[in-house]
C-alpha cells in the first residue's frame, strides 16, 4: 500500500491547525541551594504561595516559603539532577491530582501516577490537593452508621459516615489490620475506600493490596502509596492527594471511607521539610503549624448537607504512639481534632485480645446517633459491664472468697471479652453482631465454657442462617430488634442443642 505525500501533509496540517504560535513568556528563578527534597531559588518575585513550579529536569515543586530575596520550594520527584544555577519556572497553577472513577482499583503515588504496572489511568478530571473544607452550612450531623464489621468497634465505639475517628496505638498492635478489615466490610455497601499509606514498608503495602484483591475489595478501593524511600515532600502531600480523590466522590453524593496510615509519619516528613526550609522549630522540633497540618486535612472529611448531595467522607487517621503514650505532642493534637479515638494496647494484643481495643480509653463523640436501634439496645450496658469487670478482675486476683454477685459479674465479663475477640479478615454483618451481643447480655452465654465461645458463636450464626433467617432479615432491614419472644425461643432452642466440648 502506498501512502500519498499529500495525504500526509494534509494530516499534519490538520494536526497543527490549533498550534498557537505565541511567544513563551515565563518567569524564572535561579536555584541557589538544593537539599533533601527541597530547593531555594533566587528571583521568582511574583510567585504565589503553594504555586506549582517546574524545574529544568522536568520535576515539579511547590513554592512554600516566600522570603524577601528567595523562595523555599519542596520538590516532588527526582532532585538528584537539579543543580545550583539551574532555572525554575512559574506555571501559574496549583498542584492537582487526577480524580474520578478510573482511579478505583489502582495503586497510585501521591501525584496520581499509577505504580501498579497496569498501564495509564485515563481520566480527564483533576482536583487541587489543597482545598477549602466545607463550611458550617454545607454540613449536616452524622446520622448513618459506617459498619466496620468489627464487633468491638460497632458495639462500643460506633463510627458514622462523615465522622473522623482516630485509631491510635503502639507499633504492631493491629492498626493496619483494623483498616483493612473495615475496608473489606464495605463490600456491596456502596462505599468507596481510599487507603493512603504514608511511609509504610513497601512489602507491607504489597501484602495489604494482595489481601484486598483476594477478598475482591480492590473493586471499590484506591490505594495511594508513598513509601519510606520516597522523598519527604511525597509523604507530606500524600494524605492531601488522597483526600482530593475522595472529595470528587463526596461532592458527587457518594460515601467515601479514607484511611491515613499513618499521620505520625507524615508529621515527621513535614518536620523534615520545615527544618530544611529553616522554619523555626517548636516542641519536639515540629514547626509551629503542625497542628494546622492535620486540622486542615481532617476538616475536609465531612457529611455534606442534602443540598450538596448528602455525600460523606469518613476518615480513619492513624497515629503511632511510643510505649502507649497518648499524651505526646502529635497524638494529643490529633485527638483534639477528631470525633473520638480507638485506642489499641499492646498488652491486650499480646494477651490474645484481638482486636486489642482498650474500651476504657476509646470513645466515639458522634457515633451514638449512628448506630442502628437494635445495636443500641444490646450494646447499651456493654461498656459499663466491661469497665466493672476490669476493676473487679484486679481485685479477684487476691482472694477466692467472692460473693455470688461478684462471681456473676466476673463470669459475664470474661465472656464479654471473649465475644469481642475476632479473627483477622473476618468482618461480621451487623445483624449477627446484634445476635451474639443479645445472647451475651441476656445470659445465654453464662453457662457456656469460655473456651467454647468462639465455636458457639460460629455455630450460632450457621444455625440462624439456616433456620431463623427471618429474624436476621428483620434486623437487617428495619434496624430494630425482632419480637423478643421469637428471638429468645430461637436462642433457647440453639442453647439446648449446643454441646460443650468436654476436656
Amino acid at each position, binding site marked *: 500500500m502506498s501512502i500519498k505525500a499529500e495525504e500526509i501533509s494534509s494530516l499534519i496540517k490538520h494536526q497543527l491547525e490549533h*498550534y498557537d*504560535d505565541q511567544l513563551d513568556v515565563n518567569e524564572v*528563578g535561579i536555584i541557589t541551594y538544593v537539599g533533601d527534597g527541597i530547593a531555594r531559588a533566587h528571583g521568582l518575585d511574583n510567585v504565589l504561595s503553594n504555586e506549582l513550579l517546574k524545574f529544568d529536569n522536568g520535576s515539579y515543586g511547590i513554592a512554600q516559603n516566600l522570603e524577601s530575596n528567595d523562595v523555599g520550594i519542596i520538590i516532588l520527584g527526582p532532585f538528584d539532577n537539579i543543580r545550583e544555577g539551574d532555572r525554575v519556572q512559574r506555571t501559574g497553577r496549583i498542584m492537582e491530582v487526577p480524580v474520578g472513577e478510573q482511579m478505583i482499583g489502582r495503586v497510585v503515588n501521591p501525584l496520581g501516577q499509577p505504580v501498579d504496572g497496569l498501564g495509564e489511568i485515563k481520566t480527564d478530571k483533576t482536583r487541587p490537593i489543597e482545598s477549602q473544607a466545607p463550611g458550617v452550612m454545607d454540613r449536616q450531623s452524622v446520622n448513618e452508621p459506617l459498619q466496620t464489621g468489627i464487633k468491638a468497634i460497632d458495639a462500643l465505639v460506633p463510627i458514622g459516615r462523615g465522622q473522623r475517628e482516630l485509631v491510635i496505638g503502639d507499633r504492631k498492635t493491629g492498626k493496619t489490620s483494623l483498616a483493612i478489615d473495615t475496608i473489606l466490610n464495605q463490600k456491596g455497601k456502596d462505599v468507596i475506600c481510599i487507603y493512603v499509606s504514608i511511609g509504610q514498608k513497601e512489602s507491607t503495602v504489597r501484602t495489604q493490596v494482595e489481601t484486598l484483591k483476594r477478598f475482591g475489595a480492590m473493586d471499590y478501593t484506591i490505594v495511594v502509596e508513598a513509601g519510606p524511600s520516597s522523598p519527604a515532600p511525597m509523604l507530606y502531600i500524600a494524605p492531601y492527594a488522597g483526600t482530593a480523590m475522595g472529595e470528587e466522590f463526596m461532592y458527587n453524593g457518594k460515601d467515601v471511607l479514607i484511611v491515613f496510615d499513618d499521620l505520625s509519619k507524615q508529621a515527621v516528613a513535614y518536620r523534615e521539610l520545615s527544618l530544611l526550609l529553616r522554619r523555626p522549630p517548636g516542641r519536639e522540633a515540629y514547626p509551629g503549624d503542625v497542628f494546622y497540618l492535620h486540622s486542615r486535612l481532617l476538616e475536609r472529611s465531612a457529611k455534606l448537607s442534602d443540598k450538596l448531595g448528602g455525600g460523606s467522607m469518613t476518615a480513619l487517621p492513624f497515629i503511632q504512639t511510643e510505649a502507649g503514650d497518648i499524651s505526646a505532642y502529635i497524638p494529643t493534637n490529633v485527638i483534639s481534632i477528631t470525633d473520638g479515638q480507638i485506642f489499641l494496647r499492646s498488652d491486650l494484643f499480646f494477651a490474645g485480645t484481638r482486636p486489642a481495643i482498650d474500651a476504657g480509653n476509646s470513645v466515639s463523640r458522634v457515633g451514638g446517633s449512628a448506630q442502628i436501634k437494635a445495636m443500641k439496645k444490646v450494646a447499651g450496658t456493654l461498656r459499663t459491664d466491661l469497665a466493672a469487670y476490669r476493676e473487679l478482675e484486679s481485685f479477684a486476683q487476691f482472694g477466692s472468697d467472692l460473693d455470688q454477685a461478684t462471681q456473676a459479674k466476673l463470669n459475664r465479663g470474661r465472656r464479654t471479652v471473649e465475644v469481642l475477640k475476632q479473627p483477622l479478615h473476618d468482618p461480621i454483618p451487623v445483624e449477627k453482631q446484634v445476635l451474639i451481643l443479645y445472647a451475651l447480655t441476656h445470659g445465654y452465654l453464662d453457662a457456656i465454657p469460655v473456651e467454647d465461645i468462639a465455636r458457639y458463636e460460629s455455630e450460632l450464626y450457621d444455625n440462624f442462617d439456616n433456620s431463623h433467617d427471618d429474624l436476621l432479615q428483620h434486623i437487617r432491614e428495619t434496624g430494630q430488634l425482632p419480637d423478643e419472644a421469637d428471638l429468645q425461643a430461637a436462642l433457647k432452642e440453639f442453647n439446648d442443642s449446643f454441646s460443650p466440648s468436654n476436656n
Partner: protein
Amino acid sequence: MALSREDIAMRYGQALFDFAKEKGSLDTVYEELGELRLAIKENPNFITILSDPIVNSAEKRNILDAIIENFSAESKEFLHLLLTYNRYSELLEIIEHFCNLYDEKNLIARGTAITAVKLDEDQLARLGQGFAKRYNLSSVRLENQVDPSILGGVILQVKDLVIDGSVQNRLQKIRTQLMNKE
C-alpha cells in the same frame, strides 16, 4: 547567626545608594563602580588581597588609594569604609545590589539575548527598545550570547522574565502537540 552574603550585600548596597543619592552623585558613583567591577573581573586578585587577613591594613589602604585615586569623594569614602569593616570579600555582591537599586530607580534593566547568530549593536539596541516599550522601562541593556543549538529566533532573558521565541522551542511545542493527539 552569621549574616548571609546576601544580607550583607543588601545592607551595604542600600547604604551606599542612600548616601550617594543624598550627595547627588548617584550617576558618578554608578559609573565608577561599574568600571571597578569590570576591572575586578579582569584582576580577581584585587579582592583576594584586600580581604586577606595576613596583609596589614595600612598596606591594603595604600594599594586601594593607588587604584581609586581618580574616583569621586563619595566612592572613595565608601571603599575605605568597606576596608575598615573588612567587607571586601562581598564587594561584588554589594556593587551588584547597588546597581540593581540604581536600575530600579531609573527604570533600566539588564539582560541577555540568546541567538543562533551574532547580533550587531544596532539589532541589539532595537531589541532592547522593543522590550523596554512593552514593559514600561526607559531602557534595556542587552548582552548578546550565541548558542547555535536554538536554531533561530531569540531568547530574551531580563531579570526574572524569559521570553522564548526560539525556533527550537517552537519545534518542541509542535512535537508535544503531535504526540498528544494520538
